[in-house]
């Protein structure tokens, strides 16, 4: 545990854990709305913010937050109003955001594409004191929203039309989800990088789904996976000198594969338990007379 003696590692671990919590916490609502790739889009837009930060000598983290929040709001508005050509508009926003980032950072006197790379793929070991402050504040906001408004966000993400009839401020909640996702992207930017952010939002949720039956359990397991892989990836990169962002994402995908392999026998056992435990319920298998071929398909 000697890595804990270094300040940069303490900062890196704190940042990584916060990302491990916040990314799946927001991602679960995006997956529920079937907008799993929204985080990826916001990541592209955030690049313009990073570039602008260098150009104007502002903090790239805060500038990226500002620009990606604006971008996320714009995406939500496009989804709202421009139903017909929504995908085209989104594509322009994504690629415009990426091109803007490259352009601004090259115009900046101190910037180069090398700076951009640390934001694209993360640069955990160079997380500064002020970065940590920003990450802590932003993560607190994300946790507050995703836990505090979980019932409302669940309802809106599950069935927007129904949510409107329960009187929920659907448009405001959609905007809040978009803003929270944008904030999460900038929280995760220094840890896994803008291009890999979306993986941490989506893959832990997908992995958790293999085991869970409820939304609450999916949320808890996804955050658990998020924290485990971010710590695991950070520590691995300390000992093995591998890029932490890529390590974290590969670990997450590994967790997904492992849980998927684990889930199949688990589901079988659950089905068996239900069949024996509840004789009144639906039997797990059809009772077919022995004389017939039991190929599992009986014509109705």
């Amino acid at each position, binding site marked *: 545990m000697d890595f804990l003696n270094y300040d940069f590692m303490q900062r890196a671990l704190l940042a990584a854990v916060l990302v491990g919590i916040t990314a799946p916490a927001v991602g679960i609502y995006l997956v529920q709305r079937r907008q799993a790739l929204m985080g990826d889009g916001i990541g592209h837009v955030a690049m313009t913010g990073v570039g602008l930060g260098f150009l104007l000598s502002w903090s790239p983290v805060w500038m990226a937050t500002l620009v990606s929040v604006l971008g996320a709001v714009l995406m939500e508005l496009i989804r709202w109003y421009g139903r017909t050509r929504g995908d085209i508009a989104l594509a322009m926003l994504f690629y415009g955001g990426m091109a803007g980032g490259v352009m601004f950072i090259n115009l900046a006197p101190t910037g180069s594409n090398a700076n951009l790379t640390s934001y694209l793929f993360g640069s955990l070991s160079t997380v500064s004191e002020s970065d940590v402050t920003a990450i802590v504040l932003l993560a607190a906001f994300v946790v507050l929203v995703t836990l505090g408004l979980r*019932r409302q966000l669940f*309802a809106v993400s599950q*069935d927007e039309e129904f949510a409107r009839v*329960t*009187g*929920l401020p659907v448009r405001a909640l959609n905007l809040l989800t978009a803003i929270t996702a944008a904030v999460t992207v900038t929280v995760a930017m220094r840890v896994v990088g803008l291009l890999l952010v979306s993986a941490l939002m989506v893959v832990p*949720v997908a992995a958790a789904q293999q085991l869970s*039956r*409820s*939304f609450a359990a999916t949320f808890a397991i996804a955050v658990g996976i998020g924290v485990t892989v971010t710590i695991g990836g950070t520590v691995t990169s300390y000992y093995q000198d591998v890029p932490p962002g890529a390590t974290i994402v590969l670990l997450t995908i590994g967790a997904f594969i492992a849980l998927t392999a684990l889930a199949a026998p688990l589901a079988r056992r659950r089905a068996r338990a239900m069949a024996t435990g509840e004789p009144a319920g639906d039997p797990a298998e059809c009772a077919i007379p022995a004389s017939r071929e039991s190929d599992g398909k009986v014509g109705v």
Partner: protein
Amino acid sequence: MTEPVISLRGVRAELGSRPVLRGIDLTVNRGEVVALLGANGSGKSTAVRSVIGQVPVSAGEIELFGTPRARFRDWARVGYVPQRTTAAGGVPATVTEIVSSGRLSRTRFGVFRKADRAAVRHALELVGMADRAKDSVDALSGGQHQRVLIARALASDPELLIMDEPMAGVDLASQEVLARTLREQVAAGATVLLVLHELGPLEPLIDRAVVLRDGCVLHDGPPPKAVGQHALPGHDHVHPHAAHDAEPIRTGLLS
């Protein structure tokens, strides 16, 4: 008892540039069970979706409980069952979690109290799904999904139920449960507006039928005493073989 719960006057709506509703008048009074009938594309779904504000209206007035819809805030009085084949989203959720969404309108800032949890449980009992409360909705049949969606609408103890094709894709057993649930709600004084493709097992419950055709009201009165749905005025009886009628078939199979 002529207090209107839903009132539409001269309502017009377009989807894109295509007019879907062309000046509809529709009133549902307290305690009434009204069926909105019509062929596919007649505008019946658009009509109910305009009532709940999901479809923008280009002309006309809509009132809920005597309040213009734009200013209506008392949504806990309305239970809505959208036209869905599934209650599932992109993430697993239990039956209780889904039905709890329907109770949000009765809570303050989404904080659930004991009474709210009891109401959710009661709504599940009404549709006979209490024993599945902790199951994932992914494990349910089509009819059970519909029962969950109706429980979600009932969770806020609504006075008005708006249901869009609640019987679509529902097995016979679930149809009976739904008919019984609705009967109990009506007996308890609920007002109901139903979009239906055919009267079916709900027929004895229905006080009045409104038939739409091409975005206009064609019939508003007692439900047609029919030999099946064929006798409905304006009923476009579309069969899978309808397309073949355009050209003579000389296969010799039927002639």
